[in-house]
């Protein structure tokens, strides 16, 4: 039940700031076709070039057409579609190991391709969460693009609803906020469900240094 409240609050917050207000498309069909064509010719095929990464799914295409300021009806379609995409760990446990989560929250550099400076494709990857979000108080090298998450579990508790919300938000941020700036880490295959459960524990667990 509390989970519903969170979604409702998010919707209200969006409406209050005007972000959810219906807006006109920024990209018309002609301009969108021109941008697509420019991208297609500017990223040529070749060794270690995974061109499938350039493909925009329906959600991100909609975000691009409206420059993230999507009308309410389309926003509802996006959150519904993205919610459906969420997958869970095989064992059903959304609260993993916070110590592993600490590692995956921190780890950044991997998954880069091309021929100039590619990463080893076998390199284990994390979420690079510190790039945008503060977490442990002792870590000063945090970014500020996203909200700080220090004391995340201390503020919210470690109830099932919070655990589920946290897991799902990391798996697919757009299940809650259409065109959220946060990567859809599970949906896009950056993180496995197990790693997301570990990061969830790092944020929520009372034992985690995030909450000390």
């Amino acid at each position: 039940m509390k989970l519903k409240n969170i979604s409702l609050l998010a919707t209200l917050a969006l409406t209050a700031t005007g972000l959810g207000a219906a807006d006109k498309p920024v990209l018309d069909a002609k301009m969108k076709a021109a941008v697509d064509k420019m991208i297609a010719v500017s990223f040529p095929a070749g060794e270690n070039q995974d061109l499938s990464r350039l493909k925009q799914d329906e959600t991100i295409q909609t975000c691009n057409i409206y420059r993230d300021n999507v009308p309410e009806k389309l926003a509802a379609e996006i959150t519904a579609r993205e919610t459906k995409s969420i997958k869970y760990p095989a064992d059903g446990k959304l609260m993993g190991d916070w110590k592993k989560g600490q590692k995956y929250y921190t780890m950044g550099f991997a998954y880069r391709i091309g021929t100039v400076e590619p990463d080893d494709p076998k390199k284990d990857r994390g979420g690079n969460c510190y790039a945008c979000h503060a977490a442990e108080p002792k870590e000063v090298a945090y970014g500020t693009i996203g909200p700080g998450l220090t004391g995340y579990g201390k503020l919210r508790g470690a109830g099932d609803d919070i655990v589920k919300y946290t897991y799902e938000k990391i798996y697919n941020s757009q299940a809650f906020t259409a065109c959220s700036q946060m990567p859809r880490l599970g949906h896009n295959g950056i993180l496995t469900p197990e790693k997301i459960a570990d990061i969830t524990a790092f944020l929520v667990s009372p034992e985690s240094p995030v909450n000390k």
Partner: protein
Amino acid sequence: MKHLKTGRATLALAALLALPGVGGAQEMVNAEAYRAALQDKFANPGTMVGDRGETLFKTPRGPKNASLEKCDFGLGAGKLAGAYAQLPRYFKDSGKVEDLESRLVTCMIKLQGFSHDEVTRKVFGDQTKNESNTDIEAIAMYVASQSDGMPINPPLKHAKEKEALKMGEALFYTRHGPMDFSCKTCHGEDGKRIRLQELGNYASNRKNAQDTMKTWPTYRVSHGMVRTLQSRMWDCNWQMRLPDLAYGSPASVALISYLSQQAKGVALDLPGMKR
């Protein structure tokens, strides 16, 4: 005297670089001192890369055994003073809007007889392998430096110049790749950071765009070599986990057109020096 100054500034720089991680207000003060130390042009190794570029520029090379001295960067063949400050621009001979580096590619093919593949096969020196800057990086540094002190002012008259600006802006806001990022994700708001690195807001903060654009090409201290705008465009896309953005591609030129217009009016301060 020059040497003495260079030595002192380099020592100061080394001392700053050796500082352990610090936080809060002290961190900001040190960042400012660090930037001040980078202002000393005599201590900027980018100058030497530009000197090498000058030699390469004036030396007959390629199948046609020609130098680049007849290359027209928009102000007439061989006229370099102020040319970089007015790029990207439309060129009748290629029928395209070109930035400095795509223009160099055109001239190396047309004047010197190189193939496109020969020119673009290896454009960036690899700092992870301790390489030197490539020839085209050095030449770009040389040509750009001839606009030091001149305001960024690319023309916006030709329909294709207007189109490049429009396309560059559209691309700046286009989200794609496995991270769902666009340029705007990191560069759309004032005062943001990625990890400890401050991010410029190039969408709506003219001063941020100017402070950044006036010092490209730049000597990157962390790379130990000169980096150009084409390299920076490739680098951001690489960090976004996208395939390689092709050197001189329409998307790269469109982005540089957009960023140059955002930064219009500021005097270039070259060679730049950055972290």
